[in-house]
């Protein structure tokens, strides 16, 4: 058994019923040839990246099917080529990874393209901001701006005010000295 996938674009000028019947004729044809149809994806009306036959949009269909051998492909492609309602088609053979990918996509395991890559990078949970323990806050004091730091430590009470005040004063002193040297 070989796996294939045929994607074709149907002329959007046709009515909704005609588009449906166009797709159905190929489904019937494949079924008559002894293929098992795995899945039919109606991708719907999409904007084309460039105009084909002076049309700027098209109705996309994708049929995934299994065939015993490849003889059906010739018949299918000939029929597609002769059909005026079909603007473009592409038949592709699927390897085992392609079959698995399509199966996963149907089950919703694979989402949009961006999600396909990002889950792995975002799997490591971004550590939520840990509740500020008094110990941590005391270590942070010298680095944070003076006023805010002093307020937090005062509310936490763990650090005696005097030491904080000393730290702050020491910092301000150093700042002053540096500025003076720059001058």
């Amino acid at each position, binding site marked *: 058994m070989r796996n294939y996938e045929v994607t074709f674009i149907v002329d959007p000028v046709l009515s909704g019923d005609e588009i449906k019947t166009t797709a159905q004729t190929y489904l019937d044809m494949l079924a008559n040839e002894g293929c098992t149809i795995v899945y039919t994806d109606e991708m719907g009306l999409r904007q084309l*990246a460039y105009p084909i036959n002076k049309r700027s949009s098209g109705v*996309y269909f994708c049929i995934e099917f299994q065939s015993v051998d490849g003889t059906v492909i010739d018949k299918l492609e000939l029929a597609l080529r002769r059909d005026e309602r079909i603007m473009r088609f592409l038949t592709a053979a699927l390897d085992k990874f*392609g079959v698995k*990918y399509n199966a996963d996509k149907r089950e919703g395991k694979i989402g949009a*393209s961006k999600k396909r*890559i990002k889950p792995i990078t975002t799997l490591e949970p971004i550590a939520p901001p840990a509740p500020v323990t008094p110990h941590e806050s005391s270590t942070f004091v010298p680095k944070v701006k003076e006023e805010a730091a002093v307020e937090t430590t005062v509310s936490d009470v763990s650090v005696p005010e005097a030491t904080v005040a000393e730290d702050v004063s020491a910092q301000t002193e150093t700042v002053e000295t540096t500025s003076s040297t720059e001058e």
Partner: protein
Amino acid sequence: MATKDDIKFLSNPNIGSQKKKYCRFKKFGIKYIDYKDADFLIQFVNEQGKILPRRITGNSLKYQRKIATAVKRARHLAMMPYVADLLK
């Protein structure tokens, strides 16, 4: 007088220590590249819609070939443009 320590930061310190490129398909175990997924494939073309070389994307040869095939299929199905301007 500017000492040696001051001069150190006049130039961008990140120059010269560039991140190593890697093949995302090998790293994340992606085995199949879908030609119908134009949003994904657009990462591998430049603004004119040309396929980016391996030395820029960092893909391994195996997956660069698959990317090229997928992009060409997507172009045939008008999901991606053959020629474009300001694609991104």
